[in-house]
């Protein structure tokens, strides 16, 4: 297989075991390595470089020279050293054992990597635990590609299936009995091919599906600002642009922890090591509110921190997408989170620059836009080859340099995504978290999600969303005026609009990632909190219209509604109306 883990399969003779001598290294400049071309080398094939067997991938073949991007430190590679083409593209080893694990950009388990990650860190091969397998078919049955031959129990709630690989299928000649098997074991023979628990797939090739479908069912992220205003449908795509200090990573971690997906693939791409350590230990400790298991049991973490080799950062995005598709093909709903795609784009730029490619905007290669588009295109809601429904939702952070939203990565990304959750520096500065800007964000899924909510027990969803959005826009418009002329110069109804903006911001949108009761919020409770604020605002308007002085209304105690998000449990929607009624009765009836 073309995986770079020290798989015995990787060293089978391959094309280099033939009669011709191994190609030699010609040039080394950081991650760029050129070798001789001695045939039998295809684009994107893996090559092991030098005596240290540094893995690299073929990125161009020109005349007699092969250009390779190396995935590890190339120090000490000398012109004349041998290069060994493996004859296969970079692939990921896909198995149920990925769940709960932490991997580098090439999907090598970091638990085997030792304290420091240098050349040859992944030399050893750990003993793999066996896993309980239960067959789902019997010998003699005829099954097609993507069908399940059985199920493997994982450490957590995820029911992992062993699937007939794409392109295979036929009569089940043999299937293993229920029992515990190591991950590499073949558990069935279908149409003349063995089906193993662990499969391998080239990371740059999307896994095939039967068809793509529209699924209006929303992903419940547990974050009110998103679920209420800018929802994303399962299989959708989201860009999260935000300058440093706007809380991007915290927001993505919240989604990783609390969204109602079956599997989370979290790709830390060129980000902070301490943060990565934090998120890994959080996943291990936190309980999944829906299953009671550990969050880690439904999570695959790909960690390529900013000081790890740059080109593995480039691969990590594709590796993550491949893992997400693998679980999707079992009929699961997967969320792929990439933090940050800007660091991935920088790796593309770095390498393009070393190969001397003509730069387009800001030094990025001309292919940047299509690379970004291709990545987000791996999202989608599908009918799998096996005929079940599954989805991959892609959420990518973008780190615009200097907060400049016109820079190439941000500008191209927002063309290809269905939602944008922009993080606003002013909101973060005012300690309004999550700092999702209502003016700068959009969701193209809002209409279909609204229709779906209407059909599934929340008929008021779309109206609630537009009323809240209207209140925020109105309050924003008036805020500038208030700064100039003071609040007392405004007419009474407009003063209520200013008050309403504050109630929505503080009572609904703000949500503390640190709060045990409010770190996530069920859909019902989100609706209840928004409805409570809307009812209070309605009452305030009626009071003022009936002649109650606006100052009296402004000075009323809105505390119970503002504190409702802290005083009720994350899924406790039923307690909210009570708090609303306390405020309403404090306000009194209109005259």
């Amino acid at each position, binding site marked *: 297989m073309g995986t770079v883990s020290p798989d015995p399969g990787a060293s089978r003779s391959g094309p280099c075991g033939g009669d011709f001598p191994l190609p030699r290294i010609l040039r080394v400049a950081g991650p760029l390595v050129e070798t001789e071309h001695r045939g039998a080398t295809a684009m994107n094939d893996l090559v092991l470089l030098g005596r240290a067997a540094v893995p690299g991938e073929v990125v161009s073949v020109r005349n007699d020279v092969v250009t390779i991007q190396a995935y590890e430190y*190339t120090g000490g590679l000398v012109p004349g050293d041998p290069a060994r083409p493996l004859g296969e593209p970079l692939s990921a080893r896909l198995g149920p054992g990925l769940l709960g694990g932490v991997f580098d950009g090439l999907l090598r388990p970091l638990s085997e990597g030792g304290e420091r*990650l240098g050349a040859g860190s992944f030399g050893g091969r750990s003993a793999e635990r066996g896993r309980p397998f239960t067959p789902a078919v019997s010998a003699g049955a005829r099954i097609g590609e993507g069908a399940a031959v059985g199920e493997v129990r994982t450490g957590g709630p995820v029911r992992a299936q062993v699937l007939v690989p794409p392109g295979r299928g036929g009569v089940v000649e043999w299937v293993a009995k229920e029992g515990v098997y190591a991950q590499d074991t073949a558990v069935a023979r279908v149409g003349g091919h063995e089906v193993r628990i662990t499969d391998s797939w080239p990371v740059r090739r999307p896994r095939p599906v039967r068809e793509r479908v529209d699924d209006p069912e929303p992903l419940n992220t547990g974050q009110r600002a998103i679920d209420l205003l800018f929802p994303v449908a399962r299989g959708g795509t989201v860009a999260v642009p935000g300058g440093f200090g706007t809380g991007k990573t915290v927001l993505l971690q919240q989604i990783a922890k609390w969204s109602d997906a079956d599997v989370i693939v979290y790709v830390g791409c060129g980000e902070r*090591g301490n943060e*990565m350590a934090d998120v890994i230990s959080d996943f291990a400790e936190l309980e999944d509110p829906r299953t009671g298991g550990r969050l880690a049991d439904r999570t695959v973490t790909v960690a390529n*921190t900013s000081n790890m080799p740059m080109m593995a950062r480039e691969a990590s995005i594709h590796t993550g997408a491949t893992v997400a598709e693998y679980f999707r093909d079992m009929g699961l709903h997967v969320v792929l989170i990439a933090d940050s795609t800007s660091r991935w784009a*920088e790796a593309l730029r*770095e390498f393009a620059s070393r190969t001397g490619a003509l730069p387009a905007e800001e*030094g990025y290669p001309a292919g940047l836009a299509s690379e970004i588009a291709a990545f987000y295109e791996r999202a989608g809601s599908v009918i799998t080859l096996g005929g079940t429904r599954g989805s991959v939702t892609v959420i990518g952070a973008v780190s615009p340099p200097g907060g400049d939203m016109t820079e190439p990565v941000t500008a191209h990304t927002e063309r290809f995504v269905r939602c944008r959750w922009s993080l606003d520096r002013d909101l973060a500065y005012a300690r309004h978290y999550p700092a999702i800007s209502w003016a700068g964000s959009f969701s193209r899924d809002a209409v279909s999600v609204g229709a779906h909510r209407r059909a599934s027990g929340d008929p008021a969803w779309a109206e609630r969303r537009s009323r809240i959005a209207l209140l925020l826009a109105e309050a924003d418009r008036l805020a500038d005026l208030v700064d100039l002329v003071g609040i007392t110069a405004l007419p009474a109804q407009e003063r209520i609009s200013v008050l309403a903006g504050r109630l929505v911001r503080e009572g609904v949108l703000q949500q503390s990632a*640190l709060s045990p009761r409010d770190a996530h919020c069920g859909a019902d409770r989100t609706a209840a909190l928004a409805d409570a604020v809307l009812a209070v605002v309605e009452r305030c308007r009626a009071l003022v219209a009936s002649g109650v002085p606006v100052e009296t209304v402004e000075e009323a105690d809105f505390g119970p509604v503002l504190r409702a998000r802290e005083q009720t449990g994350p899924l406790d929607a039923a307690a909210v109306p009570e708090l609303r009624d306390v405020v309403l009765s404090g306000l009194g009836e209109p005259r």
Partner: protein
Amino acid sequence: MSATVWGDIEFTAVRELRGPLAVVDGVSGVGWDEFARITLPSGERRHGLVLEVDRDLVLVQILEDTWGMDPDGLRVAFAGEPLHIPVGSGWLGRVCNGRGDPIDGGPPVFGRARAPVGGTPLNPLHRQPPSEPVLTGVGAVDALTTLVRGQKLPVFSAAGLPHLELAAQIAAQSTAGGEAFSVVFAGMGLTHPEAAFVRDALDERSAAGELVLLLNTADDPVIERLLTPRIALTVAEDLAFTGGRHVLVVMTDMTSYAEALREVSAERGEIPARRAYPGYLYSDLASLYERCGRIRGRPGSVTVLPVLTMPAYDITHPVPDLTGYITEGQIVLSRRTHALGVHPPVDALSSLSRLMRRGAGPGRTRADHLPVAAQLLASLARARQVRELADLVGEDALSQADRGYLAFDEAFLRDFVDQPRDRMRRLEDTLERAWRVLLTLPRSQLTMLPDELLDARGAREDPAAGGVREAGG
């Protein structure tokens, strides 16, 4: 670098000299990133790093620059490995130049082991999340942007602001709760008076054997600066993770460092990104800053405090911007506060320590630390709004409560932030001052502090209930 074993062969076919770069022809057996030694006819020796090997050509970046070099007569030897330096406690108390050669009149630094200056990435699984404070003795920093062991927290400054004084003060005063503590101070592009100031300010720490000082001055070779922080971090990693010390690495000025990087990149003809800095500036800075941290199962920590000047006070400039994306917060210095004569001129509202929550509070600093800090910042934000309003409508038009905020702001700067440059402030003193400043506000304005604390401190009730403006209006 005495421990480097040089190859037997010396190569003499130097084809090209340009800026800090040399191209050597007819070379074999030399790998990328090797350390090189160039011998001039006069016997003078310079050093370099291999930037590229292409068949029998080798591109060498010369640390001491190519000034006065004649391609004829040069002899180039290679080490067969990347640059290694000796590591160990022998560095403590020493003063060296930016390449690690002593300038204190002492012998070369020896160590019990050698380590490559580039470092090796730490496996994220082996990182221990930071959780204990480094107390700097600078009140505004300790209270509002607590530095945590294993954190990277930069100081963003501008020309004319006393960032070097602040850095030196932090380096001189910092402690880690009585555990072994050392400072590695890497100065890059410092002027001679600045270098002298740093030596002077850190004299006591140096005499106590708790300081490693690396000084690259403005007239030293520019390219040498690329090495200075790497040597500092390599020495620090060993002192921390082998020696079990808590090590604070101060690196100043990172803007000078980034300029050296840009210079080499331009000479190599690389495609420039923002403001002509190379596209890999982020990764290069990360390869430095990310060397901070703690390791599971090992004592010690490396805390990194990079100091940088924002050209034209522009926080979107690539150096502060990319630094901010990598580091865990920032301490921003303010021109306005400096103009008021307050030292250190920390802009508390723009400053942030992302790890503070982990390093401060009960059992770490003091039980009331986090709510006090949160309340100070919230009140300060309000005070700033009031200040803007006062500029528009005049102070007389403000409500009584708002005027209270102006007084709070004044007390905050004078009584809390302002601190003599050579005086350490204990945390107890810092937090007591914080309370004193907070209690200038009436109780109704201190909503982030729990009632028990307010009762214990005797917070006063509102003088007059009326006239309180709607907050957030």
